[in-house]
């Protein structure tokens, strides 16, 4: 199962992902239409791209008063019947990451759908901070390249 992963250290907050997303998904060039949001922390100079995590038991689904959010059986994505949305914004509050956002024109709340398996934000990220990888592969990589490697190196020094 492939998902988007971020390397926060590399992201410099240029916002290209937001523009690409808004163009792809809403036909507009404006970050407020984007399903990927960059949370900026001025104090530390941090830029963290945030997007739908496609939770397995999504709280947004529980909060939706129109029952229009569903887990797609095959892809395990959290998807919506956007045409039924009444714009009450309950899912926006329920989502811990505020990754559900209100499209200012259609007034329906939307979330990332991974562009059907080819996320454009990842494709156009100039810094290479976004990656589209298999989640178990990502965990393996972390174990191998971080935790395990540190121990290996420490034992070499002995």
């Amino acid at each position: 199962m492939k998902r988007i992963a971020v390397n926060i250290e590399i992201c410099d907050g240029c916002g290209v992902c937001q523009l690409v997303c808004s163009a792809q998904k809403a036909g507009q060039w404006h970050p407020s239409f984007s399903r990927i949001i960059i949370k900026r922390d001025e104090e530390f100079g941090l830029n963290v791209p945030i997007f739908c995590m496609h939770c397995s038991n999504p709280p947004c689904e529980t909060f939706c008063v129109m029952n229009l959010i569903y887990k797609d059986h095959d892809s395990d994505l959290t998807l919506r019947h956007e045409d039924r949305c009444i714009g009450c914004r309950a899912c926006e509050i329920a989502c811990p990451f505020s990754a559900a956002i209100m499209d200012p024109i259609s007034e329906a709340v939307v979330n990332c759908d991974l562009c059907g398996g080819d996320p454009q934000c990842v494709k156009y990220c100039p810094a290479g901070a976004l990656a589209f990888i298999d989640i178990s592969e990502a965990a393996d990589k972390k174990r191998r390249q971080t935790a395990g490697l540190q121990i290996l190196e420490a034992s070499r020094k002995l």
Partner: protein
Amino acid sequence: MDKLIFIDYHKCVGCATCEMVCSMVHEDICSPALSRIRVVRYPTEAFNVPITCAFCESPPCVSVCPSGAITKNADSGDVAINPALCIGCRQCVQACPFGHANFSLDRGTAFKCDLCGGSPQCVEFCWTEALQYVPLDRALGGKRDAAARNILKSG
């Protein structure tokens, strides 16, 4: 936490017995991918690193969990996941510095080592004694002994 799974990396041969046992105990199937303890193998270096939960004092998985599903018990030191609260957002998987927190695609919830409720089966079945479930003092004592012996030998 008075007792912990103490790992002697030099003894581990990477046989995957612990992974098999763990997945058998928790998931009723022998599948290393569903094991809590995972062995990272570096074949060219002839070195194997079993990785399991460290039961950190201030665990990043607990802070990062947005639904309060992971909690650290102040008395026992246990870090546990409540599947009823887990929303399956995989933040803990990303936050764990060891890559220990694991995720079940079937159930849609995260899972982690629970020390088999007090008698870890991976330790029970580890035939090389690379894994030991011992109080911290004992583990360190053994290590000090070994180091002292080394010094004696070389001296």
